[in-house]
């Protein structure tokens, strides 16, 4: 049995055509079903619906053989025990630094200010500012990062930006790109060795479908 870990929403929607290319069709819609294990048209393939941040963990420990995870999530996880053979070019967005309108980000860097940063992506943010030679204080939040600079919790935020609509609506502006984000196919390392005959055709179909 091959288990594929996915998250609901955008990643599931954009993965559906890739799964179809590999001849895999979910028999239930995760948006309407409350089941966490979804059967497919193939007896030997099932989907599990997990939180996006948990996908690498399920695959790392072999609870799932394959998974679809954003680069944002993989960078935070570290990718230990995983292969990441394909950039699926789906769920694209950018990891960005944003500040309140009127906040002079460049000037505060020049002065060597020690910025307060709110983010869900602590590791990514730490590495980004370290590479710039900046000392920052990180505050981890689990959502609504945009509030941070507005209520005086922090000077800047590091978060995913796709259209920039939320930033604008909250009077924030993006000042720096940390990196481009898209979703990757992740594979459990031991599973690829032990179940190659079943996994490789799925990986190859994905690779052909994204070309």
């Amino acid at each position, binding site marked *: 049995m091959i288990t594929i870990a996915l998250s609901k929403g955008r990643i599931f929607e954009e993965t559906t055509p890739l799964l179809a290319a590999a001849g895999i069709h979910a028999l239930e819609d995760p948006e309407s079903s409350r089941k966490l294990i979804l059967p497919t048209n193939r007896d030997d393939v099932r989907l599990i619906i997990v939180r996006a941040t948990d996908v690498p963990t399920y695959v790392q*420990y072999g609870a799932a053989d394959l998974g679809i995870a954003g680069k944002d999530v993989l960078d935070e996880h570290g*990718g*230990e025990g*995983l292969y*990441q*053979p394909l*950039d699926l070019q789906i769920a694209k967005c950018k990891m960005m630094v944003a500040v309140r309108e009127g906040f002079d980000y460049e000037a505060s860097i020049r002065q060597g200010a020690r910025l307060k940063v709110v983010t869900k992506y602590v590791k990514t943010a730490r590495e980004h500012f370290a590479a710039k030679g900046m000392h920052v204080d990180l505050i981890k939040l689990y959502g609504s990062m945009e509030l941070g600079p507005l209520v005086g919790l922090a000077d800047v935020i590091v978060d995913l930006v796709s259209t920039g609509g939320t930033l604008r609506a909250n009077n924030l502006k993006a000042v720096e790109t940390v990196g481009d984000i898209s979703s990757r196919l992740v594979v459990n390392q*031991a599973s690829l*060795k*032990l179940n190659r005959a079943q996994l490789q055709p799925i990986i190859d179909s994905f690779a052909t479908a994204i070309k």
Partner: protein
Amino acid sequence: MAMRNWLLPEYIEDVLPAEAARLEALRRQLLDLFKVHGYQYVIPPTLEYLESLITGTGHDLDLATFKVVDQLTGRLMGIRADMTPQAARIDAHMLNHQGVSRLCYAGTVLRTKPDGLAHTREPLQLGAELFGHAGIESDIEIHRLMIKALQALGLKELHIDFSHVAIFEALVKAGNINANLEQALYAALQSKDKASVVLLADSLDTTVKQALMDLTDLNGDASVLQKAEQQLPKLPAISKALADLRIVASQLNDLNVNVSFDLSELRGYHYHSGIVFAAYAKGYTGPIALGGRYDEVGLVFGRARPATGFSLDLRGAVTALMPAVNAKTILAPAGDDKALLSTIEALRADGQVVIQALPNSTSNIVEMSCDKQLIYSNNQWQVQGF
């Protein structure tokens, strides 16, 4: 809050009777196997000065090593996180053999962080190392010994995955790749992250760039070696590595294992120097045994000897087996009847477990795993079921 002073640290655990008995039995079985293959058992110390423990093995082992200050000298000591360098030190400086030496070891190592899937910071490491021979024959000897050891443990569907670090080394040299880029490419190749390899290799010579990208796809059965031959640059070091891998694989046909190749697998790249390998088994979601050639490690001890070997974590490996059960025991009644005592001793001499009840105590036959008892009937002591 009540003091939970019986709680153990995270990822540190007791091994309880049934499992402990099995672990010890398997440990002896493997050491006996190593012994009849000529591998001499050594017992390196649990801790030694940091310099001798981790020199030449890379940053990862340094981070994995618990450190303490020696109260006698003020020097920093490390609690071993891997026994392989200790075996290399013993070979280089304690034995000083001119010819080949074969060593094996078994012992607890400590890791500062749980090692991936093992869920323990205290693996029970068993391994065998062969020093003083640079040819492929010693690699094959080690591969075959590892497979026999894993089969002796009762592991099913064994799968051996081979790689060769000289391929990446040759590309690094051909492309004049600097140390920082080498490190980044190594990490990307380890996770077969083709997208990152493409980005990182952008400024490199096109042949080298293409070869690095190809490496991420060069994994699978023996056909991979053929493909590699066609795709990779015709450098002598690469041709030699591919030829070695072909020979190695052909020497395992009689052992009933699956063999595959993964040319982007570079585990232990910092100290390995030739063929590297990992064993996988059904029921275990990670490499169950690891090894490879490491000809340079002895250099830091003043004597670079060719070396190859493997090791495994026995505590981890047994998790792929059925749960251990307690040995069945025979319950004998209390008393000092001569015939009773001599019957008990005869059974014990035969390897059976006999527990003699103590006066004024309850004998819980479930707790003691008793399935039989000694009963006096027909003028003699007899073993009967309950």
